[in-house]
């Protein structure tokens, strides 16, 4: 018997409606193709909305000396040279135009005195470079793109969870299978091209700034469909997450606090970051508090404060201070802007931070320091793509934004994510259009793949005696936090790899109660396979990369190793199912052309 499901056909299907997905939709739609967006939540709620500080673009509005070459250099150095140089180059060159484009669609950025877009300082960026709106830049970005997409009449499938990508008989991407969360009914989508814009995977860790959606769906689906995932061991622990009360542990505190003058202090009141300046940043970092403080007003009067080193450096330093017994009562350190800026300045520049601490922690940040500590924030690793087109190795499958790998190397600079979304969202849209107009003949969706995905999704209803998916999620988060956290070591990673096999068996034994209509327990059960796939790739990569670099720190290999700096670790699925074995290979980095190499040497 053949079961039929609700079915839709489009030229381009975009999975994920954050910044990258929305920007991709605009591009494909403007070129006249039929386009649909699928999102797990309501439109406008994707993770982009939580981004605070700004988007990096070398517009030169505050420091005329800034240009794409400096931005490219900062991005590569921040990424510890593991980046796909071509992505970093395209990003640095195109970001300013993408920011200006947002103004043409209605965005209202903060202004300089002469009426241009104001730019703020952030870690790792040599000049004030982040276009922003107070500390709610992500909201401005998503709302602007959302309103543009809606005005174009784009179809949006809200609260719709994609389970698996589906091929045609020749192995090209031909569509996907999903279910609608409000009803639990299955739906299939046929498409000539699919763009993954599903964001990150932080929900597999206990302390994270990510929402329930960050389960790595796109990473996992790409791997299952035959694409490669690279750099999965490179995870960004943002230095400043809230640590107290426990109910908000992990919630993001914007780097803008430090960009606007905030400093880090330990329990002795000391600005400890001066003790943690790595050799590669020594020449451009202030040595005394006096020198650092001069820099905020005039970047030529002193060198950068060490609080504004790249995020990986700051997170490791905080971790070390806490370990040495100089932490705050709840296991963090202090982020102090109260003693350094006026209450009026703080409330104007950081309104949502003020609000967040006042309401959730009862702390007035204009009067007291904040207690903060590292939180899982971003995954640098992702689907391997062609820099110019965002095309993966699977015909018809594209990826942009956090789900794509390569742009940020081993560590992402703050502010480079929002600009990544709009630069590569557009590139992915263009890539998909070019692929379709190039005449790619896509066949029918493979029925066996659809049936298998649906059978797997409903299986937990038939288990007689099984586990609550929430128990498995909690245990997974605790295990990943403990074994594959900010500082890693061989024994813990090997233990994690072994434990993930046990988790795989536990997921096969999930019991879901209730029906399919808006059932969060079932929704979680369908997210767990992706969470496990991503966790495995992270643990495998972390175990194989026997060095410390960017967002990957090994206690047993504390230094960077030149040999490991020549390749990415690339994972592939053998079998294409969520529980199939994963093989990992070394994938050589793209060689950087001589003229760009010269930029990297400059000021080294």
């Amino acid at each position, binding site marked *: 018997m053949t079961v039929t499901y609700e079915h839709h056909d489009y030229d381009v299907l975009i999975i994920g409606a954050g910044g990258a997905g929305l920007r991709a939709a605009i591009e494909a739609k403007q070129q006249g193709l039929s386009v649909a967006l699928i999102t797990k939540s309501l439109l406008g709620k994707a993770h982009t909305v939580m981004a605070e500080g700004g988007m990096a673009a070398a517009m030169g509005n505050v420091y005329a000396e800034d240009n794409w070459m400096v931005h490219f250099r900062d991005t590569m150095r921040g990424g510890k040279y593991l980046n796909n140089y071509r992505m970093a180059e395209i990003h640095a060159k195109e970001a300013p135009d993408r920011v200006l484009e947002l103004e043409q669609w209605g965005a209202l950025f903060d202004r300089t005195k002469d009426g241009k877009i104001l730019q703020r300082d952030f870690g790792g960026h040599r000049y004030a470079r982040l276009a922003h709106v107070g500390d709610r830049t992500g909201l401005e970005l998503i709302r602007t793109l959302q309103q543009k997409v809606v005005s174009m009449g784009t179809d949006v499938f809200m609260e719709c969870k994609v389970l698996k990508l589906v091929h045609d008989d020749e192995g090209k991407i031909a569509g996907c299978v999903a279910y609608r969360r409000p009803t639990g009914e299955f739906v299939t989508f046929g498409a000539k091209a699919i763009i993954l814009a599903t964001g990150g995977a932080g929900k597999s860790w206990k302390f994270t700034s990510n929402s329930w959606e960050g389960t790595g769906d796109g990473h996992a689906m790409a791997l299952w469909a035959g694409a490669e995932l690279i750099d999965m061991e490179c995870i960004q622990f943002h230095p400043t997450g809230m640590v107290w009360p426990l109910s908000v542990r992990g919630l993001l505190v914007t780097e803008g606090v430090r960009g606007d003058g905030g400093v880090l202090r330990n329990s002795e009141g000391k600005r400890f970051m001066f003790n943690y300046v790595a050799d590669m940043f020594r020449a451009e970092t202030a040595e005394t508090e006096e020198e650092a403080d001069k820099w905020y007003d005039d970047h030529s009067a002193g060198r950068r404060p060490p609080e504004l080193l790249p995020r990986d450096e700051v997170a490791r330093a905080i971790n070390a201070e806490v370990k040495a017994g100089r932490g705050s009562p709840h296991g963090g350190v202090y982020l102090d802007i109260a003693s350094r800026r006026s209450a009026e300045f703080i409330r104007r520049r950081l309104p949502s931070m003020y609000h967040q601490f006042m309401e959730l922690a009862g702390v007035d940040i204009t009067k007291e320091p904040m207690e903060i500590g590292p939180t899982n924030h971003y995954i640098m690793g992702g689907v391997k793509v062609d820099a110019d087109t965002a095309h993966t190795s699977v015909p018809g499958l594209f990826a942009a934004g956090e789900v794509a790998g390569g742009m940020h190397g081993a560590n992402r600079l703050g502010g480079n994510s929002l600009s990544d979304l709009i630069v590569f969202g557009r590139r992915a849209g263009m890539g998909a259009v070019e692929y379709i107009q190039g005449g790619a003949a896509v066949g029918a969706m493979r029925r066996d793949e659809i049936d298998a995905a649906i059978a797997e999704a409903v299986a937990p209803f038939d288990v007689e005696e099984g586990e609550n998916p929430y128990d498995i999620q909690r245990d997974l988060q605790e295990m990943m936090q403990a074994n594959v956290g900010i500082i890693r070591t061989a024994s813990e990673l090997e233990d994690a790899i072994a434990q993930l096999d046990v988790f795989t068996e536990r997921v096969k034994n999930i019991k879901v*109660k209730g029906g399919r209509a808006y059932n969060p327990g079932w929704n979680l059960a369908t997210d767990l396979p992706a969470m496990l796939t991503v966790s495995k790739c992270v643990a495998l990569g972390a175990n194989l990369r026997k060095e410390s670099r960017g967002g990957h720190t090994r206690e047993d290999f504390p230094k960077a190793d030149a040999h490991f700096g020549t390749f990415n670790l690339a994972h592939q699925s053998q079998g294409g199912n969520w529980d199939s074995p994963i093989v990992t290979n070394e994938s050589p980095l793209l060689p950087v052309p001589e003229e760009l190499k010269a930029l990297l040497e400059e000021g080294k």
Partner: protein
Amino acid sequence: MAEVTLRVWRGDASGGDFENYVTTQNEGEVVLDLIHRIQATEAPDLACRWNCKAGKCGSCAAEINGKPRLMCMTRMDQLPEGPVTVTPMKTFPIIRDLVTDVSFNYAMAEKVPAFLPPPMPEGGYRMYQEDVERGQEFRKCIECFMCQDVCHVIRDHEENKVNYAGPRFFIRYAELEMHPLDQNDRRDLVREDMGLGYCNITKCCTEVCPEHIKITDNAIIPLKERVVDAHYDPVAWLGRKIRRKTKVSAADAAIQPAP
């Protein structure tokens, strides 16, 4: 750690009832923490929306002890002692438990004629901070739709939904009206089709706004003034009739070449 009773409405479009859950409450917890604890233990199928858990996305709006609140920003220790009642937003149809069908709002968003700026000069537009600040206040909106939920015009009169945009979209129209670059005139639309006149400025929307946007004073009242001026001032009316740009539809405006 204390013990607390949550009375949560459970059911779907066909009906439902309150269910009592006795659960623990730790220091600093918000209502959403307790809903999550109930989900993770005794009721994994308890439906609620949430995303950021930081008051930034507006997903988890519900009525707590009868008042529209974000569950993620409502601290348990600031509610009166005794059982806490959590119900879905009343103005929208129920999907399941605390989840409502908010598609009314997305339909209203589709009716907003697109932003229409002049061509961008070389190097970008020039706008000044004082000119963008009025619009920025309205763009703080996180679309929790609690202002829509509390608005009597539609809360108690389902029939008004066909021609009433509601406070969320009045601030959107006000934002566009006050945008330094926008050239699209939506004043007749707001008056004739969006039901601005139904609002009798009781300020309920302003009171529930989690972003503290002064919806009534800064958006609705100025918008009413502008709409009225445009409609009843004969000189302005004649001027617009003569110079009136062809009404640009949302779709037409959107198809303009990619800037």
